[in-house]
């Protein structure tokens, strides 16, 4: 289902397009996980779940200034997607019982609620839901993550300015999202063992009373619990998710068209010079190579510059 409205004002100098959609899908063909004891890990089966995707998409095209040789126009768009598990008959006894929650996005997987480092012991702790004394009983202490994992909204703002032969284009991209944490999804090895680590883990708990974001270094020996706490934080905790929102100056391009009289004398139809830059600036609080992909170990988008001359003979 989709509803849209397109409006134009002031001789179409302001164009507004708005749409709202909702679709529900059911009986999806998925690789349904089966318990490892069955002998294999998944089967192709229909999921008896109803999923709903809704969203609003707005785009706004404006010509801000148009006087003589100077023109400035902007293009702005924003998308607000939402996903929700509407129903799942028999969820309680299904392979997804410890993963999904009805009424929540399916990306909100059940996790242990991470409470940071215990200042006394120096080891991560988790919220104790079932009153057993530890916060890592599986599945007793699992809860739907409070963080809405995935994109809350995203969009872009493009501006075009031109004056006589000059033209300037720049595009901002913005995303508000919760993504994968850099340190807790590094999934490499326990900090304290002889393996490379993100430099952030240096900010660790060292003595009683320390308030640090990361637990003590440990080789995992003995029964200190450091190894298990790290496993829980890296694989089962909501510590795995973090704010990965960002604003990025994606593209800037400047060009100048040489005067046609002058170039014609050189027997050239048209000539212009240009310079373009990509991924020039990223504003984010995310730690790690790239908030957009959040992937570790691959090259983040490169900052590139291209300059050139274009001739038409």
């Amino acid at each position, binding site marked *: 289902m989709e509803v849209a409205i397109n409006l134009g004002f002031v001789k179409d100098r302001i164009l507004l397009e708005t749409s709202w959609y909702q679709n529900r899908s059911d009986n999806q063909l998925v690789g349904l*996980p*089966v*318990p*490892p*004891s*069955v*002998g*294999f890990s998944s*089967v192709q089966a229909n999921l008896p779940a109803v999923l709903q995707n809704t969203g609003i998409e707005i785009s706004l095209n404006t010509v801000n200034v148009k006087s003589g040789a100077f023109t400035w126009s902007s293009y702005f768009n924003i998308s607000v997607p939402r996903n929700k598990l509407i129903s799942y008959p028999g969820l*309680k*006894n*299904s*392979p997804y*019982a*410890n*993963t999904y929650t009805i009424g929540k996005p399916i990306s909100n997987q059940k996790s242990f609620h991470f409470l940071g480092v215990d200042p006394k012991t120096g080891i991560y702790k988790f919220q104790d839901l079932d009153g057993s004394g530890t916060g890592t009983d*599986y*599945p007793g202490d699992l809860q739907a993550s409070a963080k809405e994992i995935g994109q809350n909204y995203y969009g872009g703002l493009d501006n075009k300015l031109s004056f006589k032969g000059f033209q300037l284009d720049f595009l901002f991209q913005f995303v508000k999202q919760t993504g994968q944490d850099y340190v807790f999804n590094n999934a490499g090895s*326990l900090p304290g*063992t*002889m393996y490379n680590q993100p430099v952030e883990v240096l900010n660790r708990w060292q003595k009683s009373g320390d308030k640090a974001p990361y637990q003590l270094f440990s*080789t*995992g*020996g*003995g*029964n200190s619990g450091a*190894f*298990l706490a790290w*496993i*829980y934080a890296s*694989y*089962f905790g909501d510590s795995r998710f973090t704010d990965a929102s960002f604003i990025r100056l994606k593209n800037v391009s400047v060009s100048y068209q040489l005067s046609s009289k002058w170039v014609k004398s050189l027997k050239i139809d048209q000539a212009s010079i240009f310079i373009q830059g990509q991924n020039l600036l990223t504003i984010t609080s995310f730690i790690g190579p790239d908030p957009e992909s959040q992937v570790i170990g691959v090259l983040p988008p490169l900052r590139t510059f291209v300059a050139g001359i274009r001739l038409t003979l």
Partner: protein
Amino acid sequence: MTKDKAVLLLITISSLTFSCTKFVQVDSPKNQLTVDNVFLTEASTNSAVTGIYTTMMNGTLGFGAIAVSEMLGLSSDEFINESSDQFLAEFANSKISVTNADLLEHLWSEPYLYIFSANSVLDGVRSSKSLTDSFKIQMEAEAKFIRAFCYFYLTNLYGDVPMYLTTDYQTNAVSTRASSSIVYAQIIADLKDAQTGLLNDYSASGGQRVRPNRSAATALLARVYLYQQKWDSAEAEATSVINNNSLYNLTSLDSVFLANSNEAIWQLLPVIPNINTVEGYTFILTAEPTTVSLDSFVVKAFEPGDARLTNWVGTFSDGTNTWNFPYKYKVQASATLTEYSMVIRLAEMYLIRAEARAQQMEFSGSESDLNMIRNRASLSNTTASDQPSLLLAIEHERQVELFTEWGHRWLDLKRTGRADAVLSAEKPTWISNAILFPIPSAEIQSNPKITQNPGY
């Protein structure tokens, strides 16, 4: 116009009439074997069964190759963890987490995979129209043996476990845990069928002792009865193997673990190129240990003059430190196969019968069985003569005879209820709940009906 319409109508009718079956049905893939094709011939059925043993042995931490010996040896008092593998450390520290990857992969998913394969063989053989009845009985018996063997370890490690007798995954995936007594009843039923259906000799595997025969089923049944404290049945089954002396004899200590040795009731054929057994490959030390070394509790347990200490225990020294290692298998790596991985051997039958007889107050018979094992190791006859002293002597003899083989020590301490007394004295980290391993979280994640063991 009317002509065109008539042609269109004709096309519509013809496509309606001749559609579907021919277009939609896809032939079986030519480059793959499907279930329908596997159980057509004896050769491919045999491959389906022996493929299970190949998978068991394919991997340097596999369930059949080493996982049970190594991980249960760490859990008891046989091995010291020398690796940086945190998951192996958890076995040694009596604190296995529900997320332990070694536990999930090698001591849970693997045996269940072999059970699935055995159930597939059973389903396939039963519904096959081209196999002969006698061959069907033999293959069903072997599949049931594999199933019983896997459930034996599962129920001993985890207590109550989900039990599947078919490949119907929709039912299996939502099962609850079957109580240990029900699992044991199934194991006994399967082993009795295996006894009936399997051949007496090793002709099914070309004379090599690498596929279970009737005696293997009898030997495993003797062990199961011992664990179930059915002493007379245990004694009878053990006797039946011991009396089969045309096939089985105690050999000298240095030839016990050779390929097809006279002591072997069932061995697994190594499949990894250029090594013999994974035990020899992993345990033998030629440098500072990086996996496991033999715990001093084993070394100290030998009586003075025990030939097994010199024959079956090796030492390695780097000048500063000295480590012990199990030296039952002598080949660390070789392209020539001289040793097979021992799963069940005759010495265990003597020890089973000695224990079953002691429990039934047949002391002289018990002593003579025990002395068979002691004398081979150049030890004099046992001095134990009443029930408590004989049972302790047998426990001790099992420790030094069967060390680092298929977790015997761990399973013995568990079944006799002696684990708390022995291990709390030896391991500062010991807790009573460690006697049952945790059900891996991946299992509970995909089947919420599965409950967890106490203490996890």
